[in-house]
């Protein structure tokens, strides 16, 4: 069934969009990532203009994250206090990121920098997670039955002032590291046009030392607000949020997120992490491949800058 999108001004297959939304929704519920880093390139591929894809996508992530976070609230796996601290950093970061984005656009080359960002961050994070998860699994096999090795906490993080108790995460640490993580993720999220979950999740596990089960819900909680903020920003400045496209994506997305959240509970933390790592590395190598291989069409058309 073909459907015409009023803002994107293209006609696409409605079932294709429902399917894409559903697939990404499942990942969202499983891993606590918004799925933007997967859906954005997919939308480009089916012919949605990039500006519309990025903006609408933010709107869709709000829906799937909200659906996912409700499931996590039920299981009490959301650290609200940590979420709010991260969110404050995230909003500041997103506002900064939009400024950086506009600066880059004035210099041209914004597409390239966005893609380089993807390759670099996805590559680093994917590789780190993959290696770490493998090591954990091997260690668990080596001394089965023994207590899991305690994660090392770096001394300097505990030396920082403004300490706060995060009961759900079982942490007592300074608010400075989560704030910095929030800002950094917010900046990247605004530049790359995604929720930032794929950066946030590993940052929470490896930098803040939060338990994996809590990480997903808390990340989703924070993503809702950051993406809602950028949806409004895109809607009011560029008029690029396509409601019909968003609705189709989010119908698939919210259902997928529910299924994903239930699959996520059944999997072990290490398995969850290694799956996410493989997926992140997959997307990364595809993007790197596109940068290195000569494209079939060397020319691209865009709306005139003065338009």
């Amino acid at each position, binding site marked *: 069934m073909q459907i015409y999108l*009023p803002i994107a001004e293209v*006609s696409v297959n409605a079932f294709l969009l429902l399917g894409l939304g559903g697939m990404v929704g499942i990942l969202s519920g499983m891993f606590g990532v918004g799925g933007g880093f997967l859906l954005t390139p997919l939308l480009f591929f089916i012919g949605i203009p990039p500006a519309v894809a990025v903006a609408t996508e933010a709107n869709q992530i*709000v*829906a799937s994250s909200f659906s996912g976070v409700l499931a996590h609230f039920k299981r009490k796996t959301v650290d609200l206090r940590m979420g709010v601290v991260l969110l404050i950093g995230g909003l500041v970061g997103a506002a900064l990121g939009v400024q950086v984005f506009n600066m880059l656009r004035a210099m041209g080359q914004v597409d390239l920098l966005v893609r380089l960002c993807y390759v670099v961050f996805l590559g680093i994070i994917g590789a780190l997670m993959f290696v770490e998860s493998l090591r954990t699994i091997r260690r668990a096999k080596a001394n089965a039955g023994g207590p899991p090795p305690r994660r090392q906490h770096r001394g300097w993080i505990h030396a920082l002032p403004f300490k706060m108790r995060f009961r759900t995460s079982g942490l007592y640490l300074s608010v400075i590291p989560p704030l910095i993580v929030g800002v950094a993720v917010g900046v990247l999220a605004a530049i790359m046009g995604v929720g930032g979950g794929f950066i946030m999740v590993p940052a929470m596990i490896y930098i803040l030392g939060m338990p994996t089960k809590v990480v997903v819900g808390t990340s989703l909680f924070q993503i809702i607000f950051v993406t809602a903020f950028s949806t409004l920003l895109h809607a009011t400045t560029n008029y690029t949020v396509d409601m019909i496209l968003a609705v189709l994506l*989010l119908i698939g997305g*919210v259902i997928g997120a529910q299924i994903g959240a239930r699959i996520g509970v059944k999997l072990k933390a290490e398995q969850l992490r290694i799956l996410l790592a493989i997926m992140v590395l997959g997307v990364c190598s595809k993007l790197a491949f596109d940068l290195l291989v*000569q494209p079939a069409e060397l020319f691209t*058309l865009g709306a005139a800058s003065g*338009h």
Partner: protein
Amino acid sequence: MKQILLILALLLASVAATTQAETVVAGLSQNEVSITANFNGSEILIFGAVQRYAPVPEGDPLEVIITIEGPDQPVTVRRMDRRYGIWMNTEAVEVDAAPTFYAVATTNPFTQVISDTEDLRHRVSIPRAIRAVGTETEHQRDFTDAVIRIRTGEDLYQVLEGAVTLRGDTLFNTSFRMPANLVEGAYTARIFLTRGREVISTYETDITVRKVGLERMIYTLAHERPLIYGLLSLAIAIAAGWLASAVFRYIRTG
């Protein structure tokens, strides 16, 4: 209403006929293309007749060219090159105005039906329909060629040589397939009669392409009340998220 218009057109044509030996009268299957939610392109049938008050002239055969042109928009064309091992945009050229849609149908191969000078004057062929400053150089030409190549690939530019059927040197008709990715606006249909590659008569009419119903409503709201539109989009997202969660909870417990 259409018939009255056609009669009016015929009357006007007969007035014009006093100065021209052969004039064209034509009609369209539709003067308005409505973009609805399930819009999947549109077929436009163009038909017409050659009117003459003298016997068919001897010599060069009569040829017909029909074009449909969408609204003009400026376009930035970027070219990629390999730098530091990766492919990136290195050069950009602004094309001042390129039609968002352009289709041209003829009775015979293009070079047989119209001369270069006439093409230049009436802007009939696709390269002539694109306006760009400084496209004289070979290098700049690559960029306009790219516009044509890319848009032809998207069915937005169509060259249909031999698609116009001409019967008995009098009646002609053709049909255009307009793709789904149309831009809103005023489209123009033009008909040229040529003999010996010279234009002897032209006819022009408008086709309105516009979004209707839900499509219209959403588009207007997004552009005129962006904040409300943004908040509404968020409300839909939140509601859908909550609904899915509630439904799944109901399924699990019930």
